[in-house]
């Protein structure tokens, strides 16, 4: 058992970090929308699905190179989400918190079903960007796509950091996050904050979809899986802090890979759910959250 663990551990860690990067980005989207609007966005996983569908469209169907297909994916996802936010979220944003939640839930299903109606139920294949020859490091075989995903995640995280620390939009969003009423008083446009938050989360989702599409393929069914795992990451880390949700997402990915490698991947959702429940019982504010 121990030898087996030593032998497979590097490979599992690599897989875990790769999957974890995806969950970390989804968790970050939860943070962004929650910070800006107070809503937990149930359609979050489906934002990534929009991105996956557009990546397939631009990169495979239209044959555009990656440097073009990823920015186009980000913009298209942003456009779809902006329309959704203006038409469905904005009209209900002042109502009882249950209402926007139900709208995002229904919106997610709307997105998933629409993608399925247009592109069919079966996943569309997207080829790896830099070939299939693995790079050997220690005992782990790393596919070049893994580097795309991890690198892409780092770039996205850096961009989000700069956005929050050095732009007026980002700072006003942080302000709205810490005190929504107060931000309104000092002249932050509360109506636009919703659009910015959803827009930013759409851009992160689109960029994430752009780098993960070759691994996951354009599968509309994945939305729910991303939504649940990313949420578990956000809660386990602590949804009040951006770095906490990212670490939480990474931990979920690692947990999933380790469970899959050491026991069986059949029950990985059960373990993630168990970890989520355990966190809620022992430390409801999240591992890095502060007790309020």
């Amino acid at each position: 058992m121990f030898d087996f663990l030593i032998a497979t551990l590097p490979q599992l860690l690599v897989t875990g970090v790769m999957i974890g990067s995806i969950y970390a980005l989804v968790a970050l989207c939860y943070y962004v929308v929650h910070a800006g609007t107070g809503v937990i966005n149930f359609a979050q996983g489906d934002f990534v699905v929009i991105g996956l569908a557009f990546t397939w469209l631009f990169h495979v169907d239209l044959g555009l190179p990656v440097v073009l297909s990823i920015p186009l994916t980000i913009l298209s996802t942003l456009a779809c989400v902006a329309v959704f936010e203006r038409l469905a979220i904005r009209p209900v944003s002042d109502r009882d918190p249950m209402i926007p939640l139900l709208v995002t839930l229904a919106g997610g299903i709307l997105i998933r079903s629409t993608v399925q109606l247009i592109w069919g139920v079966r996943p569309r294949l997207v080829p790896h960007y830099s070939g299939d020859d693995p790079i050997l490091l220690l005992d782990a075989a790393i596919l070049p796509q893994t580097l795309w995903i991890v690198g892409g995640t780092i770039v996205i995280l850096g961009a989000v950091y700069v956005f929050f620390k050095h732009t007026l939009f980002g700072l006003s969003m942080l302000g709205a996050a810490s005190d929504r009423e107060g931000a309104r008083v000092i002249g932050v446009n509360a109506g636009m904050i919703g659009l910015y938050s959803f827009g930013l989360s759409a851009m992160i989702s689109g960029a994430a979809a752009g780098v993960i599409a070759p691994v996951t393929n354009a599968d509309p069914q994945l939305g729910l899986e991303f939504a649940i795992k990313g949420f578990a990451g956000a809660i386990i880390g602590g949804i009040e802090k951006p770095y906490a949700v990212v670490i939480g997402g990474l931990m979920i990915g690692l947990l999933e890979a380790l469970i899959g490698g050491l026991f069986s991947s059949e029950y990985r959702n059960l373990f993630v759910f168990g970890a989520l429940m355990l966190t809620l019982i022992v430390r409801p504010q999240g591992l890095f959250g502060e007790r309020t």
Partner: protein
Amino acid sequence: MSARSVLLERGIILLLPVMLGALVMNSAYFLTLLTFILINGAIAMGTCFCMGRAGQITLAQSGFVAIGAYVAMLLTLRFGMPAGIGVVSAVIVSGLVGFALSLPIMKLKGHYLGLVTLAFSLVVAEVATHWTSVTNGASGLYGIKMPSIPFLELNPRYEFLLMLTVYWFAVYVVADNLIRSRYGRAMQALKYSEWGAQSSGIDITRVKTEVFAISAAMMGGAGAFYAYFIQYIGPESFTLELSITVIAMCILGGMTDIRGALVGSALVSVMNEPLRAYPQVQPLVYALIIIVMIIFLPKGIVPSLVGTFANRRKRRRLAGAATDAT
């Protein structure tokens, strides 16, 4: 509302499925449709009770329905238990699971609760798929007979409808009585302000766990009837789509009124009939119902109607008072 009008209303509600079922006694199609309206109605009432009245979001419908269905199916299939015991056990087991699930998530509000209950439903489906020694995995369980009432020689589907009506009506009466009682006012207080409820001496943790367990039990019993009626269950019978459909029913009929669940379940089940040929479009339609209703008729059909009638009565009374004065 006076005691007599409550009794009258309940009598009408109880007689509706019995009479309608007798009218279409010879049509398997319409009896099946009625049966689904009642099964969906019971799940919708559980949802309405938890979400609409106590403000606790739940997406665990498919999970609890699945637990109820599997419990009933296994008891009858493996141990030859009669359907009555199957239904009662399904209610108890689902209620207990609901209670156990509610304990760790009591500290959660609104949004978190929604996603945790959603994750719970997925885990139930996963266990049903992979615990093959008990659930027979993806191939599902089958091989029971539809229960019937002894000594009654009617259409077996109608007999089943009668038994289901008893359960459905019991769920309605329990929910309605709780809502009208002191307990219902505690739920209402919980919905509008947890702090407010707490400061008026309501044990909110207890109310939350109990509401959650009761609604889970209601859904579990509906699951048992589903299993006995279809005589086949598998993990794919209980997906997120079930929860969404039921929520669409509640929102259409009116989340804050338990009768809204009845109206909504009837409307959506009937509307579902032409859609059955296009399973791809079904979720799209339910999602659109939810969004359009929330934006344009947020209260739902029943509370909006009740409000209109109450206003008209009030206006008439005021007009009467004005003519008396002159």
